[in-house]
Structures are given as structure tokens and as C-alpha cells.
């Protein structure tokens, strides 16, 4: 994913996330998020394993 994203798209995505969550960040933390956003999206992309396609999540809810 990192190769597919240009810096402008990354900045746009990070800005939107920060606005949605109402998260103030300083300049250094902002740069960290922009620099790491593609790596983190690539990392979570690895969770889409075929074997989990029809598996229920490990979440338990009881109405009682």
C-alpha cells in the first residue's frame, strides 16, 4: 500500500482522521503519523487472511 499512496493523499487521510477524532497533535507527532500511516495501513492489511473470510470474530456477547 505504501507504494500506492502519494504524500498528498496521506496528508489528506491523516487530516481527516484527526478532524474526525478531534485529536490535536503537535508538529512532531503529526509528522510521525503522516510518515507511519502507509506502514500501518500495510500492516493491518495483513489481517485480511483468506482463512478468516468466514470465521466469526472472537467476541462474546451475552444478553443475560
Amino acid at each position, binding site marked *: 500500500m505504501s507504494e500506492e499512496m502519494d504524500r498528498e493523499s496521506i496528508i489528506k487521510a491523516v487530516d481527516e482522521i484527526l478532524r474526525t*477524532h478531534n485529536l490535536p497533535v503537535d508538529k512532531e507527532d503529526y509528522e510521525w503519523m503522516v510518515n507511519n500511516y502507509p506502514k500501518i495501513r500495510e500492516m*493491518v492489511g495483513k489481517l485480511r487472511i483468506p482463512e478468516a473470510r468466514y470465521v466469526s470474530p472472537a467476541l462474546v456477547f451475552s444478553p443475560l
Partner: protein
Amino acid sequence: MPLTIEEAAGWLRSGKITSQELTAALLARAHAYQDTVGAFITLMDESALAEAKAADTNFAAGIDKGPLQGIPIGVKDIIATIDAPSTANSNVLDPAWGNREDATVVKKLRQAGAVIVGKLSLNEFAIGWPDPTTGFRVPRNPWNVAHSPGGSSSGTGIAVALGLILGGLGTDTGGSIRFPAAFCGISGIKQTFGLVSKEGCVPLGYSLDHIGPMARSVYDCAVMLQVLAGYDPLDPCSLNVAVPEMLAGLDGSVEGLTIGLPIPYFFDNPALDPEVKAGVLGAVDLLKEAGAKVVEVALSYAEEGSIAQRVTMFSEAFAYHEGDLQTKPEIYGRYTRRSIREAALYTGADYVQAQRVRSVIKQKLAGVMQGVDVLVMPTAASPAPSFADFETNSTKDVPSFCGLFNLTGSPAMSIPVGFSSRGLPLSMQIVGKPLAESTVFKVGHAYQQRTNWHLKVPELTVEGVSA
């Protein structure tokens, strides 16, 4: 001074030492080492000595509450105690949070006659990396103060290693008991999820958090876990099951047991330090000589499982911290807020997908465990890193061999297996089936009956005190 709970319990009962003498001596050591290693956030001299006096009174009256009576114990400062503040090593946590009664685990320790000597340092909110600008002491590795003691239960690891306490409580959401145990050269276990109540502990990852024992020996951890374990209706994750007999298998034998070595990811990982690998394989050879059968196995999706643990942990932590990150982010240490805020970059689907991977990895692990009694692997990919080498991204770039077992809820223990050429502890992790802590202890104890790595004490001298 006695090195272990087991030894101290004998001394206390034979009259070789009183709990008041033991507690006073360890408190003096703790104060002397504070500026060098920063193991404690709060030392509780007055209440500890009063508890020690009560323990001695009980001994004199023939009242014996068990092996922890009169034993100096420390509590990670993210767990509530009635007689000391709880900070979570953070300026963010409202001090009012700690104005409450003891956490369930602390109540159990006190009921068993333990002496609570202080609140131990940690990484802020049990995550991140120490940030000196927060005003809290930076905990340091007693084997080399230029290196990390591991986190997040840093103070517990340091204090046990240096003999400032004989046992302590840590918490573990992705390795936070096992990493400091590994880096400080002691023993520590996170038991089956839900076996020990986490009521009264500031949460990090609700579905991954464990409170567990850290001590010098496997035997001591087993003794502590026997006291700590049990159903607690105040913890929605608590398991309502019979508590296993933790000491049942501690006979020094591994005859008839099968040890699985998960080679892919854990042993063939390019990030694995050769000295760590050699140390763990040497320990496995010793267990093999002692009668264990050793087989190679493969745990599928280990890397994906580690990612699922990370996504779960940060997402659950972000849910807890989101409000404070919106209104007062500058009060957090830099590395804490950066770590937790990573979860803002995930989606809701990512979190659910992590739980689906969790289902898969749980099934895969159960399949592997059908053919073995325990798995053995390195606890960490390298010995304790130096502070100078730290990078904020390091936890993502270095493979985690621990977090996977928080995801599955399996019992997992770290024990020392030697030292690197630079004098830093090496460690192996022993993973068992759910509620099979006694088997994990059996293997670890058998190893410690044949080695003395766990009895080594750092030669760290400060004014007036030496190891």
C-alpha cells in the same frame, strides 16, 4: 538475606529472621537503589513495617496463613492499594481513581499475610517508553543501567532482580510481565486469561490484560499464583473454574513430557539475536537430557496473530484514552500518546478483522498443542536494548513473541537461561494449554533445578549497599 520466597518462608518459620527484620532490610536497600534504578514510585515504609509486625505476631501465636506470610511484596503502580496513591506512572490519571479500596489481587495478598512494601514503576499506562519530561524516574536495568529493564512492569523486574522485594505484581497485555522478567533475569508468568482478577487495575487492553506474579524462581511464581487465582464477580472477564494446583507437578522431572519448538517465525526469524537463540536451544537440550521429548512444530499465522494483538491492544487503549488525548495530549509522555494514537489510523473493520484472526490463531494453536505439552521459544528477540538505541517504531519493527499468547489467553512464562556476551540476561518462554499452568511450572521448575541463572543477582553497587 534470603533470595527467594521459598527460602525466606523457611527462615521466618525457623526464627532465623523476623518479617520486621527482613522488611526493614529490604526497604533500606530499596531506598538506597532508588536514584540509580528507579524501581519504585512509592515506598510504603510505615504500613509495610506494621504489616510485618502483624505477621511476626501471627507466627508467634502459631497462626500461619501460608507461604506468603511475612514476605515483602511489591505492587505495580497501576493496581489500586488503599494505603498508597496509584499513578499509572502518568500525570493524566485522575488521582481520585486511586481513592478506593485495594484491588482484588492486593486483598488476596494481604489476606495471605504478605507485606506490601511499595508501588513499583512502569511505563506510563503500561505502554510506550519512558519519557523523562513527565517528571517520573526512568527505570533502569540493574545489569547495565544504560539498558532498558523492559516494560511495562519495569519496577517489578528491577526490584526482584536486585533483591528489593521477594516477589511482585506485574501486568501483561502484550508481554509486560515477560519482557521485564527476561531483561532483568527473573521469572514471570501471565496465566490463563481470566484466572486472576484484574479488578482494580487501570485497563490497557480490556480483552488482553492480565495481572500476574513475578519472582526470582518458578516455585515462587507458583506460590504467588496459587494465592492470586480465583473467580471474582467484580471482573467481567473472570473465569468461574476450579483453581488448578499450581505446585502439583514441581518434582524436578520432565519425563514423559513433549516440548514443541515452533520453528517458523520464532526460531527462524531474521531479527532473532544468535545469542538468544543459542541460549534457548541450550535450555531445550538440557530439558531433553532430563527426559523430555522435543519435536519441531509450526504455528501458522504467528505474524498475523501478533498484528492482531497490536491492533486489539491499541484500539482498546484508544477507546479508554480518547477523551484525554483530545483535551490534554501534552500531559502524556510523548511515546505513550503516540503509541495509543496509532489506533486512530485503524478502522472499525480492522478491529473486527483482528478478532477474526484471533479466532483463527486460537484454533491453530489448539491444534499444535494437541501434540505437545508445552511450547518453548525465546521470550524476546534480543537481550535488553540500550536507551541509546531506542526508536519509537522499534516495537513495530521488532517481532513480538509474547503478544500472540495474550491474544489466545494461554499461560506463558519467562525464565532466565543465561547471559549474553555483554552480561545481559537471556530468556526463554514456556507456553501451556489453557489452565495448564502446573505443566508450565513443572517444565520451568525442572530447568531451574538444574541451573542457577535465576539466582544470579546484579553486581550493582551504590553508596552503602552492594548486591
